C-alpha cells in the first residue's frame, strides 16, 4: 500500500479565506450605507437620523427584526431557485413565473380542500406549490436539453405568461365576492403556522434547511461533484460520462420547485390570500442575490439579509418620512451597479 497523500496544511489559508470572504460583504454594506445616505441627503432628510430610525427598528426591537426575516424568506427561496441551476451553468430568470404558478397550485389546494385538517392540508399545499413551480421550470429545462431554446429566454417568456394565468384564475373562478382581484381569505388550516409571535412562518425554517442541504450536497456529495463538473466544463463532463440532460432537467425542476414553494409560502403564510400581481419582483431579486453571492449558500444568506434590511428600512422610511419606496429600488440598483462594476475588492471566483 503506497503512502497516503498528504493534504497541504490549510488552517492559515482558511483563516485568510474567511476574512477575504467576509470583507466582500462588509464592503457591500458600506456601499449601501453611503449610497443610501446620498439619496437621503438629496431628498432633504438627515441620513444619520434615518439610519438611527432604521437600525432601531430592525435591530432594536423584536418586531422590526422579525419583519426583516419575513422579508428574507421568499428571497432566500428564490435565490436558491436560481443558485442551484446556476451551478450547472443554467440561467434561471424564471423565478417570478415559477413563484406565481406554485402559488396558484397551492391556492387551488387551499380552496378545494378547505375541509382538511391543517396537518394534511399544509403538506398538500406545499406539495402542490412545489409541483407547480417544478412544472413551470420543467419546460425550459426540457427545451434546453433538446437544444431548442436557451433557458434564459424561455424562462423570461414564461415569466410574462404566469401572472396572466393567475389573473385569469382569480378574476374568472376564484375571486371573492367582495374583491375581484383576490381570492377569499384562506381558512385557518391553510395558513402556514407562525413562529415566535410574529409574522415569521415555518417557511423560514424550511428555507434555512434547504440552504443547509444545498451547501452539504454541493460540497460533499457525488451529485455536487458532478454538478460542479457540468458547471465548470459541460463538454468535458459529458465526455466523462456525466449525464448532462438528466441533470439539466432535474435541477431546473428543483429550482422551479423551490421558487414554487416560495410562492406557496407567500400566499399561505404571508398574505393568506391569492392576490393578483402579488410579487414585487422577488424572482428577479432572487436572481440578483444569487448572482451577487456567486451561488454560494452562506453568501446568499448574508446578501439576502442585507437586502431585506434595506427593504424593511425603506418601508419604514416611507411610512415615517414620506420617502417613496422608489428610493429603495434605486438604492438596491445602485448597490448592484457598484458590485457589478467589480472594483478590485470583489475579485470574481471562477465558477
Amino acid at each position, binding site marked *: 500500500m503506497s503512502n497516503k497523500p498528504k493534504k497541504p496544511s490549510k488552517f492559515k489559508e482558511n483563516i485568510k479565506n474567511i476574512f477575504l470572504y467576509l470583507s466582500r460583504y462588509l464592503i457591500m454594506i458600506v456601499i449601501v450605507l453611503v449610497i443610501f445616505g446620498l439619496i437621503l441627503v438629496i431628498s432633504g432628510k438627515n441620513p444619520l437620523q434615518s439610519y438611527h430610525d432604521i437600525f432601531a427598528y430592525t435591530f432594536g426591537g423584536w418586531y422590526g427584526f422579525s419583519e426583516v426575516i419575513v422579508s428574507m424568506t421568499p428571497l432566500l427561496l428564490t435565490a436558491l431557485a436560481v443558485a442551484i441551476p446556476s451551478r450547472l451553468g443554467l440561467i434561471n430568470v424564471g423565478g417570478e413565473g415559477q413563484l406565481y404558478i406554485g402559488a396558484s397550485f397551492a391556492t387551488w389546494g387551499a380552496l378545494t380542500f378547505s375541509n382538511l385538517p391543517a396537518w394534511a392540508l399544509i403538506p398538500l399545499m406545499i406539495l402542490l406549490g412545489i409541483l407547480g413551480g417544478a412544472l413551470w421550470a420543467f419546460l425550459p429545462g426540457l427545451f434546453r436539453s433538446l437544444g431548442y431554446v436557451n433557458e434564459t429566454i424561455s424562462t423570461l417568456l414564461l415569466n410574462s405568461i404566469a401572472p396572466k394565468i393567475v389573473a385569469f384564475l382569480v378574476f374568472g373562478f376564484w375571486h371573492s365576492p367582495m374583491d375581484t382581484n383576490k381570492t377569499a381569505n384562506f381558512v385557518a388550516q391553510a395558513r402556514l403556522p407562525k413562529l415566535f409571535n410574529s409574522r415569521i412562518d415555518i417557511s423560514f425554517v424550511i428555507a434555512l434547511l434547504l440552504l443547509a442541504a444545498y451547501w452539504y450536497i454541493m460540497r460533499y*456529495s457525488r451529485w455536487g461533484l458532478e454538478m460542479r463538473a457540468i458547471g465548470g466544463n459541460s463538454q468535458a463532463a459529458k465526455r466523462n460520462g456525466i449525464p448532462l440532460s438528466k441533470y439539466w432537467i432535474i435541477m431546473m425542476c428543483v429550482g422551479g420547485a423551490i421558487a414554487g414553494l416560495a410562492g406557496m409560502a407567500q400566499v399561505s403564510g404571508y398574505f393568506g390570500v391569492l392576490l393578483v400581481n402579488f410579487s414585487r419582483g422577488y424572482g428577479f431579486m432572487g436572481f440578483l442575490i444569487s448572482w451577487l453571492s456567486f451561488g454560494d449558500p452562506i453568501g446568499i444568506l448574508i446578501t439576502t439579509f442585507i437586502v431585506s434590511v434595506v427593504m424593511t428600512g425603506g418601508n419604514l422610511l416611507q411610512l415615517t418620512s414620506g420617502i417613496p419606496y422608489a428610493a429603495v429600488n434605486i438604492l438596491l440598483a445602485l448597490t448592484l451597479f457598484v458590485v457589478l462594476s467589480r472594483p478590485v475588492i470583489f475579485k470574481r471566483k471562477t465558477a
Partner: protein
Amino acid sequence: MPIPASQELQEKIVFMKGITKSFPGVLANDAIDFSIYKSEIHALLGENGAGKSTLMKILYGFYGADSGEIIYEGKPVKINSPQDALRLRIGMVFQDLNLIPAMTVTENIALFLTDLPFIYKRQEIRDRILDLSIRYQLEIDPKALVSDLSIGQQQKVEILKLLMSKARILILDEPTRVLAPHEVKALFKILKRLRDDGFAIVMITHKMKEVMACAERITVLRRGQVTGNLIRSDATESKLISLMFGKQIPNLEIIEDISREFTDTPLLELVEVSTVGEGATTSLSKISLKIRSKEIVGVAGVSGNGQKELGDLVLGMIQPVLGKMFLGSQDLSKLSIRELRRRGLAFIPEHPLAMALVSYMSNLENFTLTRTKSYERNFGLKMDWEKAGVDLQECLKALGFEFPIYAPSKTLSGGNLQRLVIARELSHQPNLIVASYPTQGLDVQSTLAARKALLSARDMGSGIFLISEDLEEIFMMSDRIIVLYQGKIAGSFKPSQTDIYEVGHLMTGSEVFYVE
C-alpha cells in the same frame, strides 16, 4: 547575418531590434533581432512554444513588446494595434483564422479594407476579389458564406483579404497545419508567385521539411531566443534540428516489434454506420471497421473530413442513424456514455483543458470524473477521496508522471494536462482507447510520454483508435491505417503497404499518383 548575394541590393523593410516580451511565468521573446527584406520567403522556424507567434503578433500590433524597437524602412515606428500594422502594409493570417462564419467572403474582406467608403458597393468589391483570385490562383466564390467553406478555402480568403488591404508583408502562422501534402505544394506555388510580384512573406512553422522546400531565409527560434539565421543553401536538416532543439536531438522513433498476434474477436466493430452531421460537422457514411485487442488503428485525414466525428461516434457523443456498432458483442448505440466508460472505453482528446478536464477543480477531482460512482459512499452522499488519492498516486507512479494531486488543474502545463488525462483514462485497464489528436500542440517530451503510454496500454491488451493529423505519427504507431475523406473510408492498409503521398492523396480525394 548572412544574406544571399541577390539580396544585398535589396532593402530591409522591417528590422525588429532587441524585442523582449514576457507573459506571466514565461519569457516568450528574449532580445530577438529579426529582419524582413523586400521580396522574400522567410521561414520562422521553431518548435511549439518557441516564441514565433508572439514575435509576429508584436509586429502585427496584437501585443506590445516590453522592450526593443521596430524599424520600418529605416525609421523607428510604434505599432500599437493591427490598424497601425495594416497602415504599414503588414498583414497576418492567424492559425485560428480570423474570419466570421456567418458573413460572406465579400463581407469578410470588405471588413478589412482600409479604403472602404461609408456606403460601399458590394459588386465592386466582388470584382476586385475575382481579379486577384484569378491572378494568384486563389479561386473562391465571393458570395459564399464562410461557414460553408473548407478550411483550405478559408485560408485562401485570408490571403485575399491581406492582398486586398494592400499588405505587402504577409505573415502566415502555421499555414500548412490543415492542408494535405499536395495542397501544401499548391500553397507554396502561390507564395512563390507572390514573392515574384514583390511581396515579402514570413512563414511561421515547425515543419522542417516545408522550410527546406519553400523558404529562402530561415530564422530559428528556441525558447524565446534566436539560435540561428541562415539562407537555404546553407541549411541542412540536421543543422536545423540542432538549432531547433539544442544539443539534444530527441529520438522520435520508437522501435516496433511488428510480429504481434491478434485475437479474432474484435473489441469494437462498426458495420455500415452512418451519421448525419449538423452545420459544420461532417456526416459519416457507411463506415465499417474493426479494432481488435492489442491493435492500433490509425485514422488519417485532413481536419474536417470526419475524424473528430468518428471519435465522437465511438465515444457515444453522436448517435448513428444507420448501421450497427458493437462493443465486444454488445450493441453500442443503446448505451450511455457512462455505461460505455464502465465497460472499458477511454478517451484522450486533443484539448485536455477544453474537452476532458474542469480547469478549476483539483487534479484529484478531475481524476475521479470518469468513474464518480465507483468512489461514492452512502448512496452518493459522500466521496471516498482517500481511495481516489491512492489510485491516482499509483497511476502516476506506473506511468512515470509527476505532479501535485491537490493542485487546481489549470495550473498545469499543457503537457502535464495531457498526462493527467492519460493517467485517468489508462487507469483501470481500459479495453478500448479512443485517442483523438493526443499529441497536438505538445512539447517533445510530452509527446514521447504520451506515445509511450499508449504503446504500453496496447501491450497490456487495449485496442487503440488513434486519430491524428501527424502522418508520421500514424505511420509510426499504427498496425493498420484507415483514411477518411468526406466522411467515408477512402482506404485501409498496413503501414508497410503504403506511403505518405498515397495516403495524402486519399486524404484529399484525388487520384492516387506519386508527386515529385
